[in-house]
């Protein structure tokens, strides 16, 4: 059982990271798209960002350097990531269940991080004053993990009810969405229940984390907790292959689309990318496009279909 759990965890993490990397590369490798920003942009000058203004509000804007207000971006990102600000603003009915669910996830990530740090302290700093951290980090990990799992179960149950009863959500809810929520509920319920109701003599979270590091099969874990860990590992491996990987997408949709107001200046890297894209040879079939697979985008853009027709 213990070995199977270790294998599931390591395999789950590996597949998760590989899946995320694959998805990141898929988006990062797409050609530079046309500008498609949406205002307000948080990296604008603060007084402009407040009402959604841009550098286009200034005459001869190209004579001034572009403002890059990273603090503004971070503020918006933190509000968005931690508190789901846009959902709260535009869809209050769904915000609380979604917030509980996501905050639960963050607490679980914090718990895993604390458990990993506690293990590192125990292994690397044995006998030094750093080993004291273990006594601080271990209970934090257990507390954050427990609260996180409870919030995930509560949020997922609430979302499940909303998805199955709200007519507005029905047309865009698939069997997979229901399955995903049930998957979270099952994994987290098993984890929290299995850990709290574990038999005497089975490993604590810290002992389990330490055992996982050494692949120590002598560590005893309860069946329910073990099943929860295996289920959670499969869930983690599954996430990058679903729309639940929107934590990756969100970087691109916000930074590379909504907030991308970078100017195309002569001789810039952007101009280089544009030039490369104009060399693509499209194959659209409508006669007015005039794409035959031989002509480049640049050539098509410089032809006049009304003159071509007269030839």
């Amino acid at each position, binding site marked *: 059982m213990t070995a199977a759990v270790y294998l599931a965890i390591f395999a789950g993490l590996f597949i998760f990271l590989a899946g995320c990397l694959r998805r990141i590369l898929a988006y990062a490798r797409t050609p530079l798209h046309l500008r498609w920003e949406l205002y307000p942009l948080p990296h604008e000058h603060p007084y402009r960002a407040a009402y*959604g203004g841009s550098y*286009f509000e200034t005459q001869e804007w190209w004579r001034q350097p572009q403002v890059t207000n990273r603090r503004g971006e971070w503020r918006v990102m933190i509000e968005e990531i931690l508190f789901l600000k846009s959902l709260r603003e535009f869809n209050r009915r769904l915000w609380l269940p979604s917030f509980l669910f996501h905050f639960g996830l963050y607490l679980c990530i914090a718990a895993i991080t604390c458990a990993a740090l506690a293990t590192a302290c125990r292994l690397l700093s044995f006998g030094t004053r750093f080993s004291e951290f273990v006594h601080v980090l271990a209970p934090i990990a257990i507390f954050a993990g427990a609260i996180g799992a409870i919030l995930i179960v509560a949020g997922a149950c609430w979302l499940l009810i909303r998805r199955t009863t709200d007519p507005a959500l029905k047309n865009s809810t698939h069997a997979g969405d229901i399955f995903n929520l049930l998957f979270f509920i099952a994994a987290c319920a098993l984890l929290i229940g299995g850990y709290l109701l574990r038999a005497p003599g089975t490993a604590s979270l810290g002992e389990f984390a330490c055992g996982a590091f050494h692949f120590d099969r002598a560590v005893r874990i309860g069946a329910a907790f073990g099943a929860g860990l295996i289920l959670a590992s499969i869930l983690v491996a599954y996430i990058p292959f679903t729309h639940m990987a929107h934590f990756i997408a969100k970087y691109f949709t916000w930074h590379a689309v909504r907030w991308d107001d970078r100017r195309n200046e002569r001789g810039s890297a952007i101009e280089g990318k544009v030039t490369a894209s104009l060399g693509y040879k*499209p194959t659209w079939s409508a006669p007015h*496009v005039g794409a035959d697979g031989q002509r480049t985008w640049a050539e098509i853009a410089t032809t006049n279909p009304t003159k071509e027709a007269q030839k």
Partner: protein
Amino acid sequence: MSGRINLRDVSRPDSEPLIHLENDELMPLPAPLENPEKDRPWAALPEQCQSRYECGLDDTCAVNIPKPKSREEEEQLVARFLSGLDKLFDKKNNWTFLEPLLLTMEHCTGCQSCAESCHIFEASGRNELYRPTFRSEILRRLYFKYVKRGGFLSAWQHGSIQLNWPLVARLIELAYRCNLCRRCAQSCPIGCDNGLVARELRKLFSQEMGIAPREIHDNGSMLQLKAGSSTGMTAEIVKDNVAFVDEDISERTGIAVRTPWDVEGADVLLIHNAGEIMAWPENPGAFALILTLAGVNWTMSSELAAYDAINYGLWYDDAQFARVALKHMEAARKLGVKRIVIGECGHAHKALCVIADRILTGDLNIPRESYLPLLRDIVLSGKIKFDPTRNDFPVTLHDPCNMVRLMGVVEPQREILRALCPQFREMEPHGVDNYCCGGGSGFAIMSGNNFPDWRFHVSGRKKLEQILNAFADCPGPETPKYLCAPCSNCKGQFRDMIAYYGLWQKNRIFYGGLVELVVNAMADAKPGFIDWEWR
């Protein structure tokens, strides 16, 4: 209403409309339009239209797709659709928008935050068909099934759908039930963009199947590339018309004006939406007067397409978009001007200043800007003397989506109005949170069949509510009111919608641009530039 509809209904083999709207189901309007029974009735689709064209979506028909004559023809059309679908997700065919489209396809959680922001969905009485995710969900299912070649597992994860000609025909129409205002994208927690989905669908239909509304393709971008303007005006005609405008403006204001043409090395190449010259000549006239008095070294160009800022490709076709944008830039390069300034046209702003930025290289990348900062600086500079009491009537401001939410030009127009219009009041919401006029993405020029009924009852309804609310303190005809719409397309929608509901006769709600207000307040011009005569 035809009850609740399901996504599966779009594949229904009959050609019956999926929904029918009644006036009493629509979002209620404030006084004087609060009684749905007194609301304008919808014209029925002509029988000839129903028999010849695909009208299986709703109460109207925007695109006029001829009905296929045989099963084989239907299958060929579906095959062409599938071919286009593949190209939409291929970098060499769609490098222009591949990344945002992929992100939208693969990450929507179906939370419906977008629906709460969509004026069309709200105005329709929250009809499922107009939910922003409705069309996106159809495309998403097709994407996973036919582009990603998903099997049973994919259908379970993403949903399934039956592809047939009725679905494609309805999807073509559905792509033209969105104003592309992207208010929905602004509210999406993930950053998905249902407006982009509508736009990319239009692109697929145009670039692969050659299907687009006649008003924006044949009589729009194609005519512009052939004659020089979607109005049909050639260079000679436009020069004649502008000369007449100059004469008229000089007479009305008492200040001599002459529009300069093809001045090499000018500081500013001004490009108007040529529709202004035809429909609202006082607008280009006002521009000429202001720039002349401010001492700006400016010119207009008589090169093909360069005297008409419109670029309808923005709404439906990348190739047409790039061609028109390049025509504008080539004219600027030929004259050797220092910058291009776009007049009162929202989509032309977005097209040339923002979107075209990433198709221009080398010496074609000439700086482009909105007329608004220039106008603001002129008004606030003191070069021209103003008397704001001449504008002492209620004025509200419409924010064209393309200038504001999609370009971030928010304050200059307000600074002008605060300086020149003592009774200026905002609509709510405004700025980047504004609502579309309902004529965006080409709707304002689409008047076939009974499409205007849909345009005024549904897509323009939220804006109409905003306008009536903005003037709620002075609704009666004794107070003339000015709806300032610094965009030609929006003005077209307001002209038609205000006339449709009789709001000029009953409530004295007038509409016009921003430069007209500026000239109206000029202390040295004859008073009464705004003549309060309906056009």
